[in-house]
């Protein structure tokens, strides 16, 4: 999975950190202090379609190129999350109770072309 560089054009993972103090949520979210709102961005040429992890090998790229040629014009591939992980949050609820929960599939860790 590629991490986005300033000149990235292909599908990649863009880091974006949300600081709870910066948005005024630190009064009810105890931990963590922020979270990685990562997202997937970039273009998916047809020859990398269906290869999560962005053309992991030369062979898969060639196979996908063949596949793309045979279905050319059928549509575009999409740059989507291919791996996520949970986020544990400790916060105050409406009744000032302390709540801890694990939110599944919250943080995007890898992107690929669908």
């Amino acid at each position, binding site marked *: 999975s590629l991490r986005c560089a300033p000149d990235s054009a292909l599908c990649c993972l863009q880091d*974006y950190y949300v600081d709870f103090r910066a*948005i005024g949520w630190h009064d009810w979210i105890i931990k963590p202090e922020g979270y990685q709102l990562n997202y997937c961005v970039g273009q998916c040429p047809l020859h990398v379609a269906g290869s999560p992890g962005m053309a992991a090998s030369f062979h898969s790229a060639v196979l996908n190129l063949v596949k793309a040629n045979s279905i050319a014009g059928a549509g575009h591939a999409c740059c989507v999350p291919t791996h996520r992980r949970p986020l544990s949050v400790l916060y105050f609820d409406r009744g000032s109770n302390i*709540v801890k929960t694990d*939110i599944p599939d919250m943080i995007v860790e890898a992107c690929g072309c669908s």
Partner: protein
Amino acid sequence: PGSTAVGCPGCGVPTPAPGPTLLELAKRQLLDRLHLSERPNVTRAVPRAAVASALRRLHPGRARLQGLLGPFAAWDGPAAEAQGYEIVSFAETDTTGTLGPELQFELSQVPARDVEIVEAQLWLPLRAPSANVTLQVMGPDGAALSTRRLVAGMGGWHTFTLPPGLHGLPSLHLALRCHGCLHPDGTRLLSPGPARRPFVAARAQARARGHRVGKR
């Protein structure tokens, strides 16, 4: 659609650039995943000493808050598939009564509407009572739903598992009654100090979605 800008043409939805729009999306996503319609307004500040003390008791050896943020150790059975919650609710204590202290816990709306409590345990810091003390769970009409006798002479933290039938009450109302005490007020039954605040530790899980098959 049709845009040549950086984004995902296959999805037809342009990727928002970092800024206010993305922040609003981040807030909405977090609230949705926590099953909250809006951010909670914290009106009652819980003393930090009480929070640290409660967490130390629930997770010995992991005193620091950061240490609690690992995934749940074990959620067996159907609960493993649902989003799990651990809740610590601190009591509002009324020690002005002449019969004994009364404790109120607001567990009914935690942490969200689609979440139900599956297990709850009461933690009480007691002074060593010299006489018989009972713990009563009071119903909405003031009648005792459940009564438990405490062992005389045993001070320190006491834990009681609350019966499942009590989880759904609008609020949990407990009364400590001392029989034979000259002054059965709260200051003589409950241990003093900000770190010794009664609390309920509960486990909850999101209700399963989809239709259920009923059996008559």
